[in-house]
């Protein structure tokens, strides 16, 4: 469909801005794909969006990894809550 056509110069900023706004709904990966798309642009505003989008992505990634680490190690000791939170129950744990 649409992605087979490269963007024209005028549209780039508006597309970038839309992706930037979408990313604020708890979707940091959209910032990452935006950065992949607009990586080589030199327009200052696009660079602003890309830079801060990447910052946001890596921050949220860090938080997510942190939380997963906590969950994986402390799941057993949480009892009920741990089990209700688990999507996958590994076999053979105490």
């Amino acid at each position: 469909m649409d992605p087979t056509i490269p963007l024209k110069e005028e549209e780039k900023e508006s597309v970038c801005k839309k992706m930037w706004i979408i990313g604020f709904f708890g979707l940091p990966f959209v910032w990452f794909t935006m950065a992949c798309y607009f990586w080589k642009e030199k327009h200052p505003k696009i660079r602003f969006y890309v830079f801060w989008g990447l910052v946001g992505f890596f921050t949220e990634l860090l938080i997510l990894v942190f939380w997963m680490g906590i969950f994986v190690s402390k799941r057993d000791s949480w009892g009920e809550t741990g089990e209700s939170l688990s999507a996958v129950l590994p076999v053979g744990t105490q």
Partner: protein
Amino acid sequence: MSSQNEIEEKKKKKKKRNNKKQNHKQKNKTKDVEFNTRYEIQEGKRDPGKEDLDYIVAVYTKQLRKVLIPVAVTMLLVVLVIRTAYKDKPEEGAFNDIMVYNESDEDSAGFRFGGALLNAVIVIAVILVVTLIMVCLYMKGFDWILVGWVIFSVFIILTFYGLLTWLEIFQYLNKSLDWISALIVIINFGVAGTITITWKGAKIVNQIYLIIISVLFAAILSTLPEYTTWILLVLLAIYDLVVVLSPKGPLKMLVETAEKKGKPIPGLIYSSMVWFMSKLEKNKTKKKRKNEKKNEKKKTSSSSESNTSESDHFLQNNKILNSNSSESEENLIKDNHEIDKEESEENEKTPTKIKISKKKTKKKKKKDDNSSALLDHSPKLGLGDFIFYSLLISKAAYQDYTTVFTCFVAILMGLSLTLFFLALLQKALPALPLSIFFGIIFFFITSNVLVPMNSLLFQDHVFL
């Protein structure tokens, strides 16, 4: 004498082209040469004599790699997913509620064959019906329905089936996962994928997401019962052959409507997306000049696909058709979900069994849009092709690795042959039949002859 000059000219141009061809990103003037020759061949000014054939075939073999690699990657990923996560699961028969005939080992082989044939015929009939519905919708101007449908079904596949596969893999790997991070990750993944595929996105990200969609869908389809799958594949290959190569049918109507509207048909295609800039050609016929004027009026619209010239009428058709191909599956996935969730569906009344619709499917084509400044020179492959190749491989993956390897080779062989014919014949071709026929032949030969031979030899420690 003049032909000798032509040959010399061509050789020089060929050298020039070969030298510069490494940098796709540069604005290549030599692309004009390609367009000139192709354009002239299309317009009938120059007969595709032997020199031109060599030339064209050389161009296509360089692009062969771009098509083979994604197909190979998709198939390998499917094999990986199935060998790890799906293999040891008992055949739950997820499709048994939907199929007319439920295969079971107790029935005789002939009975199973008949039942499976019935299943497959019903599926194909549903595909036809949905195709016609989509053609009607598109022609009446309701293409926003189709676009919305594609968006919705892409999102559902990526999130729902992605989540299922992810949980299966993690269950196999015995790792723990909590719902919070699972939901966060999968929704991110799904939304980003939908945006990249249906709106704008980086080329590589787009291709990766299309591959992932094919893998997910093929993994799900692999839970179809055995006989049904094989008969379905054969029937689909025949259906594809008939639909693509037949001179009449909804194909033409769809394409003409698309041309009138100047908008591409919504759908999913995998395009290797090699872009070249080129100057517009100097020698143009009246047709092209007329189209250029049309194009200038349409310049406000962002898609270069709207700049369809009549000279690439044929190829443009193919592209559109190509794009149509996989979209239909998406439609059906939605129905699949409905059927799964609302189990009270009266499945006996309507033949709405598994809808794995494929429209004018699986065409490979090369789009050669001479009149636009940006030209997409890549062969395009419909997503349905990826999915059905992967389905065949997944059936092999349920057996053992030898079968996988031979089927893999068979499919790639069929694909390269199809590309070769595409180069020769310069029109849209169905990508499915050749590969599937080779794949099926190799599968049955391998599983019945090669594997027992290998196991016997292995027992006696004879390694070939």
